C-alpha cells in the first residue's frame, strides 16, 4: 500500500509521469498537477458533468476516477479535443447560438456533445437531450446548447451527402 502512487499516462497526446496522492481524483490531477484548467470541478460527486473528460476514448466523470488508477491510460481533455479540431464546428455553433453563457459547464458539455457526434451522428433532438441529461447548466441555457448540437449534426449530415 502507498499513499503516493507513480503513474505514467498520456494526456492530450503527451506522455506524463507523476507521483500522485492516492486520494487525488482525475480533475484535481489535471488542474492542479498539470495546469490543465479547462476541465472543471463542479459538484465533485458525479452529478453535474462539468468534469467530463475522455479516458481511453470514452467520456467519464473526472471527479469519479482516481488518478492513481490511470497508469497507462489515455486521457483527453477539452484542451486536447480543441487542439485536434475534432469539434471546431460544434464550438463555433456554441458561440453562434450563445450556448456558453457563464461558461462553467461548457467544457463538460462539449465533451459530452462530442460523444454524440461520434457515436450517434443521427441523434434526434430528444436523443441529444437524453445524452446531455447528465450535464447541468446552472444558467439553464439548455435550449441553446441542444440547438448548437442539433445544428452541428445537421451540418455534418449535409456535408456528408
Amino acid at each position, binding site marked *: *500500500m502507498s499513499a503516493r502512487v507513480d503513474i505514467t499516462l498520456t494526456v492530450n497526446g503527451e506522455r506524463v509521469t507523476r507521483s500522485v496522492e492516492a486520494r487525488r*481524483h482525475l480533475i484535481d490531477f489535471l488542474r492542479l498537477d498539470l495546469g490543465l484548467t479547462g476541465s472543471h470541478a463542479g459538484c465533485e*460527486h458525479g452529478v453535474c458533468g462539468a468534469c467530463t473528460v475522455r479516458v481511453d476514448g470514452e*467520456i467519464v466523470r473526472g471527479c469519479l476516477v*482516481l488518478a492513481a488508477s490511470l497508469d497507462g491510460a489515455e486521457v483527453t481533455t477539452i484542451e486536447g479535443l480543441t487542439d485536434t479540431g475534432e469539434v471546431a464546428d460544434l464550438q463555433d455553433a456554441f458561440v453562434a447560438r450563445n450556448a456558453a453563457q457563464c461558461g462553467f459547464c461548457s467544457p463538460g458539455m462539449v465533451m459530452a456533445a462530442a460523444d454524440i457526434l461520434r457515436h450517434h451522428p443521427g441523434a434526434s433532438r430528444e436523443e441529444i*437531450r437524453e445524452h446531455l441529461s447528465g450535464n447541468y447548466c446552472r444558467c439553464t441555457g439548455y435550449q441553446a446548447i441542444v440547438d448548437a448540437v442539433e445544428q452541428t449534426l445537421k451540418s455534418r449530415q449535409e456535408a456528408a451527402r
Partner: protein
Amino acid sequence: MVRMKWPAIGYVRATSLEDLWTAQAAHGGSAQVLAGGQTLLATLAFRLSDPKVLIDITRIAALRGIGAQGGVLRIGALTRHAELGRDPLVRQHAPLLAEAVPLIAHPAIRNRGTIGGSLAYADPAAELPACVVALGATIVLASARGERRVAAEDFFTGLLQTALEPGEIIAAVELPSATAATRCAIVEVARRSGDYAMAGLAACLSLDAAGTVAAPRLVFFGVGSGPVLAAKAGAALAGRVLDHAAIGAAQMALAEDLDPPADMHGPPEMKRHLARVLTQRALGRFLPASEIAA
C-alpha cells in the same frame, strides 16, 4: 450533507485474484475493493465511507468477459454498463439487461460503473439488482476460501445489505439464456432522466403459443429495502392466459406484495399506485395485438 475532498487513503493495484487475496490479508477490514468507483468514490466525497486502503480490482482479467455456454450466460463482474448495453451475447441471451442500461445514470457513468459494483452496493432503487432477480440469475462469489454461488433473490438481504461475507467479492453473474417463449421488460418512473427511479419494475415470464403465462417474476425496485419479488402478483398470473383481466389480478395482488416506505418522493400509497401503473406498462407489452385493440 457536506461534500469535501476525499480522505487520505492508500491505494493498491491488484492484477490477479491472488494479488487481491494477499492485499486483503494484509489490510483486513480497513480495505475496500474499488471497481468502477461510481458509487464508492462519491461516498468518499461525503465521507460516508472511510476505507483506509482502496484495492483496485479493475485489472484482474479473471473478472472480465462475457460468454455463453450450455444455456448459461456468464457476465464478468467488471463488465461496465456501457459494455452490457452493446454486447451481442447479452442482447441475444439476456435482452432485459441491454434494455436496462439506458435507464442507469448517464453515459459518462455507464462507461465506468460495473455490474458487480451495482449488485454489491445493492441500492434499493437500482435497476440491475432487480433485473438479476427477475432473470433468476446466480451470483458467483469468490474469496481466498474459494468460490460459491448464491441465487440472486437470496443475495440481497436488506437495505444496502447482501450475502457477501468479509473478504468476498462478486466474480460473475450467471443467467439462464432467454428462449423464444421468454418475455422480459423493464419500466420505471423517475423525475429526471438518469435519476434513481421513484419506482420501477423488471418483469420476466414465459408465454406459450396459447398465451398462457409460466414462471412469472415481477421484481420491483425503489419500493422497498431492496429488489422486491412480487410473489402474489406472480401467482395471480401463473397458468393464466395473459389478458387485461390477468394484468388486473396481478395489480390487485400487489397490495399484499408491497409494503413501500415513505421516502423523499412521496408516501407509500403513491408508490403502490406507481407499481400498479408499471405493472400495466410492462405486462401490456406482452399482450397479443387483439387484446391491445380490445
